């Protein structure tokens, strides 16, 4: 083992860290900074921010704890880690909440300054857990982080409150020391962020460095760790969250299609960041319209779509419910439109900041009448980029609304992304106008898509609307046979998308005993669980559905080749229900609805249970 400054340097292959504190303690920022630096030194990583819905919940409460979990490794990884190896607890509540999740023998760094009577009481501790055997078995480091920050900032012009607010940078500096990370990326960030307040640059930088040097100087820590860079493929990388990837994906789709991008939306957790990111891209001609409500968000997007824009509206579950009627209008008028639902815990307001996958049925079926739309889902933060492009590609080619499902977990989580070459990105074509035929607004091409003729085109003035219409002419028509014909035609058009999308791929054996079939943000946990099972010598196959409506053309063939299909979902079994009803194939539904993503172990134990059953 190497020695450095009298400290032992231990090389480990992976670590899961949890930063936890009050919602005002800056833990999300600390976690994000640690992630960016960790990405920058070449580790693979995955993050799980977990924060309360209240902006500044009362100090010291259990429900006010904000956490940021980060898994980084010298090997490829797929999840933010099942249980932390290290907990940084800025107060007693953060300790109490996270104690049940961390590994036995985990490292705990506590800010002893916050373990006063008031905070202990608020967290429900009768006794100080630092002074009894509550933490027996853990490697506990008691650090007076607030005091040390105050000392480091002595003479600062900042108020005592502002000085104390810098303590998260002290903690960050200490963790940088412990895991051998460079300070430069965070220093650069501080310098840009506080450009207009030099006294804050000075204070945060001092706190960061003080934390770093404290680790070096104190007798408390005898060991520091290194995690070697992962051997990632050659290329240019950036660290990306799902919401940022979604925003960039639409801007890319606008560039690829040559169409102006319009976002009509209303702020809602956890989707608002897509609006924030997109509103920056003005020099790409992006128009973001912050509407008066969810309905105006989608209605304005429908107007923009009629006008010839690549039109998008973004929301979360409650907002998708409000957009229901207007989605039907886009179905009826056959306009291209992308609706992003960053799913969160429901029903009603539910759990705004927590993740869930329970809007699948709402997306596919949640409208009046027979109202088919395409539904697709992103599986990881970086996949949001590709699926935003895919949603645009389908909407524009088929003249249809497309619902793109992501979720709070992949939207806020981040991972390193190997940037694609520009020429690897797909072509985007709009439904063609057949100039050999006399123009009619509801003429059809081979996919049954209608032509998209935009206002301003002379001689092709036409009206569209939500009333039932005659095919080809688009004239209002209430005749029974016509309605029957049109309902089936709109369904057939959406079904035709199956001819346009890739087949469902199976990872592992193409037939066998067990297939784990997932969709959306459970991809990482399923992949990790399957990897662990294979490492233990089991044959387990995996398939992940990115296209939920219509499903890929080969879905039934794939599923029929396996004896048991396990469908893990963060709902009560919505995909399982769809598979059963569509293909009459039974599946084992494995569900969790805690507002949290699956842990790999929770999926692995289900596979083991099935394997155990089939063996015995």
């Amino acid at each position, binding site marked *: 083992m190497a020695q450095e400054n009298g400290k032992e340097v231990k090389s480990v292959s992976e670590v899961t860290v949890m930063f936890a504190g009050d919602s005002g303690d800056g833990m999300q920022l600390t976690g994000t900074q640690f992630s960016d630096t960790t990405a920058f030194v070449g580790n693979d990583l995955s993050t799980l921010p977990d924060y309360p819905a209240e902006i500044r919940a009362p100090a010291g409460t259990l429900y006010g704890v904000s956490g940021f979990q980060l898994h980084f490794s010298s090997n490829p990884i797929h999840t933010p880690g099942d249980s932390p190896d290290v907990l940084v607890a800025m107060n007693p509540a953060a300790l109490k909440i996270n104690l049940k999740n961390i590994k036995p023998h985990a490292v705990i760094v506590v800010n002893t300054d916050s373990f006063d009577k008031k905070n202990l009481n608020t967290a429900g501790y009768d006794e100080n857990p630092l002074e009894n055997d509550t933490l027996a078995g853990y490697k506990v480091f008691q650090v007076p982080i607030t005091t040390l920050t105050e000392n480091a900032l002595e003479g600062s012009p900042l108020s005592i409150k502002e000085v104390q607010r810098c303590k998260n940078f002290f903690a960050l500096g200490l963790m940088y020391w412990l895991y051998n990370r460079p300070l430069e990326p965070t220093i650069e960030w501080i310098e840009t962020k506080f450009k207009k307040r030099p006294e804050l640059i000075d204070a945060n930088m001092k706190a960061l460095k003080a934390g770093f040097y404290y680790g070096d100087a104190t007798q408390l820590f005898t060991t520091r760790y290194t995690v070697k860079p992962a051997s990632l493929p050659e290329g240019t990388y950036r660290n990306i969250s799902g919401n940022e990837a979604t925003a960039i994906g639409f801007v890319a789709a606008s560039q690829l299609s040559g169409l102006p991008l319009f976002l009509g939306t209303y702020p809602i957790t956890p989707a608002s960041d897509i609006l924030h990111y997109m509103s920056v891209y003005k020099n*790409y001609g992006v128009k973001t319209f912050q509407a008066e409500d969810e309905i105006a968000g989608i209605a304005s997007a429908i107007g923009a779509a009629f006008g010839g824009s690549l039109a998008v509206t973004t929301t979360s579950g409650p907002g998708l419910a409000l957009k229901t009627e207007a989605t039907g209008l886009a179905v009826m008028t056959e306009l291209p439109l992308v609706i992003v639902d960053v799913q969160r815990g429901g029903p009603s307001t539910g759990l705004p900041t927590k993740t869930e996958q329970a809007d699948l049925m709402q997306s596919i079926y949640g409208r009046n009448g027979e109202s088919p739309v395409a539904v697709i889902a992103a599986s990881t933060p970086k996949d949001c980029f590709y699926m935003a492009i895919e949603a645009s590609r389908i909407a524009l080619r088929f003249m249809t609304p497309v619902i793109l499902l992501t979720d709070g977990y992949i939207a806020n989580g981040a991972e390193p992304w190997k940037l694609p070459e520009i020429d690897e990105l797909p072509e985007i074509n709009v439904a063609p106008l057949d100039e050999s035929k006399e123009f009619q607004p509801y003429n059809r091409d081979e996919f049954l898509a209608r032509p998209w003729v935009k206002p301003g085109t002379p001689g092709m003035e036409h009206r569209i609307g939500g009333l039932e219409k005659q095919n080809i002419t688009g004239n209002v028509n209430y005749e029974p046979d016509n309605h029957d014909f049109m309902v089936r035609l709109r369904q057939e058009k959406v079904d035709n998308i199956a001819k346009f999308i890739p087949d469902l791929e199976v990872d592992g054996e193409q037939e066998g005993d067990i297939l784990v079939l997932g969709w959306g943000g459970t991809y990482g946990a399923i992949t990790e669980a399957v990897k662990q099972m294979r490492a233990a010598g089991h044959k387990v196959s995996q398939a992940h559905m990115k296209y939920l409506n219509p499903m890929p053309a080969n879905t039934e063939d794939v599923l029929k080749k396996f004896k048991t299909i396990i469908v893990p979902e963060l709902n009560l079994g919505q995909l399982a229900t769809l598979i059963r009803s569509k293909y009459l194939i039974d599946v084992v539904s494995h569900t969790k609805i805690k507002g949290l993503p699956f842990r790999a172990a929770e999926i692995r134990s289900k596979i083991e249970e099935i394997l155990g059953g089939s063996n015995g």
Partner: protein
Amino acid sequence: MANENMNIDKPKLTAKDFSSGLDVRWCPGCGDYSILAQVQRTFPAMGIPKEKFVWVSGIGCSSRFPYYMDTYGIHGIHGRAPAIASGLKVARPDLSVWVATGDGDLMSIGGNHFIHTCRKNIDLKILLFNNRIYGLTKGQYSPTSEQGKVTKSSPYGSVDYPFNPASLALGAEASFVARTLDRDPKHMQAMINRAAEHKGTAFIEIYQNCNIFNDGAFEVLTDKKSKADNIVVLEHGKPMVFGAEKDKGIVLDGFTPKVVSLADGKHTADDCWVHDEKDPNPLRAFIIAHMTDHEELPTPVGVFRQILKPTYDEGVENQIKGVKEKKGDGSLEKLLYSGNTWVVNGNGEVEK
């Protein structure tokens, strides 16, 4: 915009060019026919190419309007026409976007969209067909029905207070607010032309008779015998004078408008309140709006207020232009490869 798009080679447009040729399905005698006719009469001479007009509507009798116009059009969903039209206009500022709506559509289910469209000053022309009743659902009271209205849903009289649409529009900071009547074609045409010329949200309340469910609602204002004494026609820079013999005027006593006789020798037209539609202070426009349905005061028609301020849609364009000048046009290359990136080389090593 109008002049740039004028195509002098094309034959002059006529009212017929704006008729879609579909059978108009409003009830015979409906005031909507007059609105359609006045729009079709005014549109050809606006100097805007036909393909640049778009009609957007919601739900209700009024909202069938786009089907009868041979322009681009969307028949939307209930209440949402201003929001659909807003998205269209922001995406396509080159278009002339018109909204056809009714008192249920705009004042009830679409109230939120209406006030926010006015607030943002999006360059839309909104024609409110106000018949003070729900027609398409067969006769319930509407948010503009007078209190005590007996209808199918209010057999003992409605308890609701009504909205005053002009006052609501003024309160929401609409930059153009006018009122006209279905039975005064000339005046309606003038108002439509004024709205078309205005840059910003232009709101016209049209008193429209529903001869099936609320017949005669505006009779006193349209009947030849009574209208002169019950209407004051607002004209910018002119005193408010009315009556068959122009023998009555409005004076402003503090904040209170009062009718005076111009025949008794005590007052002349010079004493009357001179209408100033450009007044930057909205107060007097509110007083005018509240002269509506007043026992002692005539109902005003004409342009209540017109002020000029930058529109939302041109604000968006200017912002994009400014950022493009500062940052340069975006490209896929810049989009992906900007920000905090790092390079992993062929040996798997990280380079900056």
